[in-house]
């Protein structure tokens, strides 16, 4: 449903009793399902907020970073959203936490990043 939509259309889709809000970054789609009373634009902000943090963390993030380091993406997401609600809107705060966690994890975890081609990843949030 999302992928078939042209960029000139709204970023909102009405689906059953919910709305689907999505944002596209190159070939990467971020999709969120929200309730119909929720504020659509702020959800776009949540997505962008997440992307900016990913960007800061990985340094000019691309989809390969997310595919090969999907575990990192999960760690970061956990710092931003819990049970579908935004927990921290302060980028610095989130990054601080993530980096703090990284520091105490063992080194082995981050060695040997691979490389390869491209694909889509869609991330489901509330």
């Amino acid at each position: 449903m999302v992928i078939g939509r042209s960029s000139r259309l709204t970023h909102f889709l009405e689906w059953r009793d919910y709305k689907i809000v999505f944002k596209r970054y190159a070939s990467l789609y971020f999709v969120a399902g929200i309730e119909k009373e929720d504020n659509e634009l702020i959800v776009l902000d949540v997505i962008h907020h997440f992307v900016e943090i990913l960007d800061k963390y990985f340094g000019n993030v691309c989809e390969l970073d997310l595919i090969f380091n999907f575990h990192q993406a999960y760690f970061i997401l956990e710092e931003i959203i819990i049970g579908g609600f935004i927990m921290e809107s302060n980028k610095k705060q989130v990054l601080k936490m993530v980096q703090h966690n990284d520091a105490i994890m063992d080194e082995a975890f981050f060695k040997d990043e691979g490389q390869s081609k491209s694909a889509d990843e869609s991330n489901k949030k509330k």
Partner: protein
Amino acid sequence: MRGLALFIGDIRNCQNKDQEEKTVYREMAKIRGKFQNRALSGYDKMKYTWKLIYMYILGYDVDFGHEESLNLINAPKISEKCTGYIATGIMLNEKSDQRVFERVINAIKVDLTCGNQICEALALATVGNIGSVELATQLDEIVIHKAFSEDRSIPKQVRKRALLTLLSFFKRNRASYNQEKWLRGFKFLLTFDDMGVLLSLYSLILGTIQVMGRQGYEDIVPILIEKISHMNSSAYNNQQQGYYYYQTICPWLQIKIFKILQLFPPPSDNGHQQKINEVLLQIIQKTEVTKNVNKNNSDHSILFEAFNLTIHYRQAASETLRKNIQHMLDKFISVKEPNIRYLALETMCKLVQSSSNNQFKIQGHLQTIITSLRDQDISIRRRALDLMFSMCDSRIAGEVVNELLDYLQENDYELQEEMVLKIAILAEKFAENLNWYIDVIIKLIEFAGDYVGEDIWFRVAQIITGFGQAEPNVNLQKYAALKMFDIMSMPSLHETMVKVGAYVLSEFGYSIADLPGKGIPKQFQLVNRHFFIVSPTSRGMLLTAYMKMLKNHPPLRAQVVPLLEQYKDYWDEDIQQRVCEYLAMLELSDELGEEAQQLMNEALDVMPNFNDSLQTNSILNRRILKLKVEKGFTINSDEVEKSIKQGMSRYETNNTVSSALSQNNPSLLSGMDNLNLGSEPLQKSSKTSVSQPKQQQQIVQENNLLDLDDLLSGNSKSNLGGSPHDLLSSIADLQPPSIGGGDEILNHKFYMTHADRFSPQQTIKLGQQTLDMTVSNAQQWKSLLPFSVKEGVVYQDSNIQVQVSIQIIKYLERLLFTFSSSQGGQLSDIQVRIPTSLYGDQLEMQCSPVKYSDQDPQIVMMIMLKETFAVSPSMKVQYKTPSGQTNQFEMRLPIFLNKFTEAVEMPTSDIFVKTWDDYTHNRPSSFQKMDVIFKNPALHVSHTDVLNKTANFFKNGMNLKVFQDNEWIVRGVGQVNFKPPSQVTFPSNPNDMQKPIIAPIMIEAEFFKEDISEFKISVRSNDSKMIAQPLINFLKFYMQPNQ
């Protein structure tokens, strides 16, 4: 982790799905083996667990590894713990193994109270994400403590997570809710400055009040107003710089505050009201469109929330505010940026609904909104339609309805159904004069007949007939009759139109009978032209209409009676009974004279007025509510209720309408029954003949007996002998004589000699074919209909070819249509329409939007079987050829009962025979038992060949388990799967499918030694679904095509 990266790389290198599956399953097997090894290092466990997570998010079912996740949670290293928690959060849910789940909860408990804030935070995040009832009950206490404790030493990382976890618990389990405690917690935390904590807190407050109501929480309002006012003041300078998002101070926080305030009435304190008004005004005046998309998004997200709050405050919001909003929305609904336009349309809809008596001058914008109604984005079109519906009032109703009718002709199938309903409601609600209303409904049927359900045309019938005790609106009736007279003279009409025409002309046709060229015989002729193109149910209605015409114009009898005779042994019981009753009425009126004549006249009298209560409680309003619930259009029930109320008050105030409609009579049921072809029209429709009901029943019974005698004695001979017994040869051409079945079978020579092979209780009579070749794609359709055919060309002409591929799982059928141009190039603007409303009770149908890509355009259609149906549905398609020409065609879909069948495993034919005999002799007559004599379709080959072919057809055409024990008989057994009521929506994957309701099929084809020119086909089934008749028709269609 090298291993993980390699694995991901491997998967991404796969060329196709098969390869990917192989790689995944190979890896899964390997990991399964590794996990057997107890001495696996923490690093390896972590690596394999991440691989499993990756497989899981690719959509594979991972049913092991929970144990290892648990081990990881218990590990001392943070990285392992982290992995364990994430794996648990993603892969574990309430359906998982209880014992593992139990131990996970224990591990979480330990971490939650360990004092290390990182562990606590991890545990809380996972628990909050899963948020199951089980977790909620067991961990509530700890989480509440961490959230609300006034111990300021609790780290804010923990506090934030605890608050959101509590919200997640609360949504599933309210047992631990205690208002006093929560309110104390809220008040304590509201004094915090940390925006992160506040953000989580506001979410919790919002979630709590949404569910529990605002009572008791009123004190929070002033605090929030202070906060938002402070945040928006120029003096505000937050130390926590990171909370600015594109130079806006934490938009999330501001939106939460506005959302919470919308749950409360306007503040009673003037000071507070003024303060919030100032904030709103400031936001509304200061928000500007900038070049940065993200800044725009965040600023406008606050802006629209400010709109919402202002609209919520209604009169309490200042005049300036309201004017500003109106002004900005006016502007926004015509901007190019689609998101903003979408939100503006939605918000304007709210504005219209909250404002009383058109304070807002929206009318001037109708044209702007219509542009959005034609937007290419379905989201925007929906909003535009809703807005037009909401803003409509008596001044612009005509214009709105005309615009919508115009648009209806453009065949926007995604909106069609809703549009039809909305137009019907608007036309009724705002009818200054009812002639206009009738014109509108007629156009609806003309433009989108498939979407005009019974409720809509019943409503027209009600309104023309009148309500309660009012004098009938003779002018309206005459107008309707004239109108329908003209329409009925058109050559091809939608079935619904024929029904309306038949109803109106039979009821009120007399009022125009004196006009030149419009006499009742002419009216009869016009209606009768459509007789053979409508379904049996409608034919029943037409027959009733003929009787009513006959009453007004007795000479019609010469034409009506032969028609009735024709239907005396019709397979449809309702029609048969009705016809017999009518014939009996006519006969009796001849014999008994005056008295019976009078009785008949009363029975066929003009429809009495409908019950008063119907006048205001329109079926349409109820249905639109239902439609909303089903389809999830974003309009709350308030709107519908409001529109119902508006409708009512309009009836009370609007004189022209109420003179036509104001009234009281308990004849609702009788009226609807007659419209809807009730089984006993004679008794029910005659409300005046209370004194003579017994006599009437006698007439009916006598007649039924006579009729049966008649059939048993003579008629069957002529049927089997094939001699023409029809009275009207023109009808005989169209109506093939039945080939046996029903009572006739009992006289058949096979029955005489082999009575034990038949059921003496024939429950169904075989009648007319319900499968026929009268469609443009008849050949293709016929070849696609057997069960085993899964793909092929379903329609083809010089411009277009439509391929279909069919997938069937139990009661669900999925059809993928591919539209390709026969002359190269790509087709565009494809629109399809399916008759959802005609088949509403039998099939659940849904079509995807057309998918355009490099390949030919495709759509997917999903169907669920609810009830037996007799005729395959059709689909209308409109498209544009590569050269730009617009064409349309209609094709019948390869869907029939046999597509939903399934073989049943039955070990031996002995069991079959035993069950069969039980059904035949012991089960009550409500069970479906049907024996039919077929002609041998190929006399020149041996009968065993015919039997082999039949066996083959049972197997491939109907997907049955087949037994062929000897050269005289083949047997097939299986079941038809119907959708259970618990399956409300279309399943997204096969695992979501519920247990079907099944109707067993047992079928036999048997030759008898003495005469192989004919053979017997028998069906047995239970009484849950009426499958025997359609299946026999299906066989007949293939095995006796010329009969």
